[in-house]
């Protein structure tokens, strides 16, 4: 699950501005202050969207991820930057499927974080069935 940035053969991400001007890129990087909704018309030709987390406290990327998944994006959605083990469960719920943390994560901590919560109160972008639905079948 945890991958490293730019593995072999991967197309480098372009900026949102560059992507919107240059239509043949298939990987784009979204900064916290960039509106994910700008990508919605182009989702079918994207293979990778990398969402930047320059500081873990800046939570705009969580909304970006959900908005992209809610719009039907099915490609790779990567959280890059100040990504800590204590954030990845929420990130997964918001639709991220890969992580490129600046500082390597301990795999057993990652495993524990991702399996700690058997159920969830609310619906999000991970397809989990919310508790209220479990209660009422």
């Amino acid at each position, binding site marked *: 699950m945890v991958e490293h940035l730019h593995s072999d053969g991967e197309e480098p991400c372009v900026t949102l501005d560059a992507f919107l001007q240059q239509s043949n890129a298939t990987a784009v990087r979204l900064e916290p202050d960039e509106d994910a909704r700008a990508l919605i018309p182009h989702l079918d030709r994207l293979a990778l969207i990398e969402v930047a987390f320059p500081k873990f406290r800046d*939570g705009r990327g*969580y*909304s970006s991820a959900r908005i992209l998944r809610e719009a039907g994006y099915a490609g790779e959605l990567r959280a890059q930057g100040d990504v800590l083990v204590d954030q990845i469960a929420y990130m997964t719920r918001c639709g991220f499927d890969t992580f490129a943390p600046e500082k390597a994560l301990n795999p057993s901590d990652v495993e524990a974080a991702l399996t700690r919560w058997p159920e969830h*109160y*609310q619906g999000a972008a991970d397809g989990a069935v919310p508790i209220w639905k479990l209660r009422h079948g």
Partner: protein
Amino acid sequence: MYKYDEYDQQMVDARVAEFSDQVRRRLAGEITEDQFKPLRLMNGLYLQLHAYMLRVAVPYGTLDSRQMRMLAHIARKYDRDYGHFTTRQNIQYNWIKLEDAPAILADLASVEMHAIQTSGNCIRNISSDQWAGAAADEITDPRPWAELLRQWSSFHPEFSYLPRKFKIAVIAADEDRAAMRLHDIGIQIVEKDGVHGAAFYVGGGMGRTPMIAPLIKDFVPLEDMLSYAEACLRVYNRYGRRDNIYKARIKILIHELGADEYRRQVEEEFKHVKSLGIDPPKAEFDRIAAQFASPPLDASAPDAIDRSDPDFAVWVDQNVAAHKIPGHAIVNISLKPVGGIPGDASSAQIDLMADLAEKYSHDELRVTHAQNIVLPHVRKADLYSIWQELDAAGLATPNLDLISDIIACPGLDYCSLANARSIPVAQKIATRFSDLGRQKELGELKLKISGCINACGHHHAGHIGILGVDRKGTENYQLLLGGSGAEDVSLGTITGPGFDEDGIVDAIERVTDKYLAERSEGERFVDTFRRVGIAPFKEAIYG
């Protein structure tokens, strides 16, 4: 009262396990204090001046006796034998050791309690009307909606790293006992054409830039409440400022965007969010609401109160409120004894209040945002027995809503953010006005003290507000007049230059003397202030 099912219990148990692991990693040096800080904050653990402070959530201020006793147990076992009830209907402990925090959370989980999201830049504990389910003026009990919001907001994956903290209150009466419009989202359940809906006020708050929340939507169908809240939050998460912590609350965003533009964006987002199916079905609301069913209260219980003991009669007149069922009453227990620390209660007092709730109030207690405790469902015939027990424990101070019923933040005695002490000022004011006849002559007078501009002591919303500041290294107190956190919500105005600790007490006395001289028949202090304006008061204070 709401009872956890297996899912709710599983959530708090998982949180205890998670936090225990985080504390272990911190104590082992695997994570830095900077990385640990947001994690402990989301579990209500602050590092204060002298020790860790743990804030325990009391959702919408409702507790049963078993939970109340656990709060006493924690005070006794892990703290210095007392707890401090807060303006957000929570309780905090001031002398906690980090290594004890996991055990405390486990103790809390054993009675369906937690410290989840009592701090941090996330959706905080949902607050409500402390008289919910008992007040004669409510159109419905707001707490089932508060519980629905509690579950929706707990561990919300998208809204746990917001620009800043986020506070939601829910009420269902026109009389606002929860300072609803001074919240990030204030929801009032209202009725239109025989149907209930939610009025959304968004962008209120205190702090250094106080704002009264504008009405964003007058009637959200209740089946859309969570979607609408989600849309409100998503717009905030997208555009709320992150460059300056003091401008990061939603009130600043709405002030800068304007309520109309914010509303337009929320409506657009709502259209999308509503399609996601995040609102639970009515069956889930009904499941929750059934647990808030009114206890069996006998409407034929005797309505008369034997007032032959004059001290008891004084307390009844001041601290007992009307209940919606005849023969019953709402008891307000003041945690503001003259010379005491507002909101503090000893373990023995907490245990006693639990006993009284179990014996006389259908096992229910409430915490109020004014830092008092309520027994919501009491038979009038039991009032005298209750009063005797309270009196013996130092809990029968008959000063509800009087000048000595002071809201005060912990201030510089505890808080690392404070610029000045709040507690000694509260004590001096209460002592100066200790004569009950004088207090009653002054009537309803809400006095609120904050030890810094973060305004935890609600000074902007005080009929009389006091703000402690640091002036060239000495504590200085500014005086504000004319605020209100109730349905007549308003923000106080600073009178002028500040005072030292004794000077502020003198200034308040000049203000109250002026009120007595100026008031017309039936006017409260704040009414007179609104009628005559600040000038006569300034003249009285500064000459």
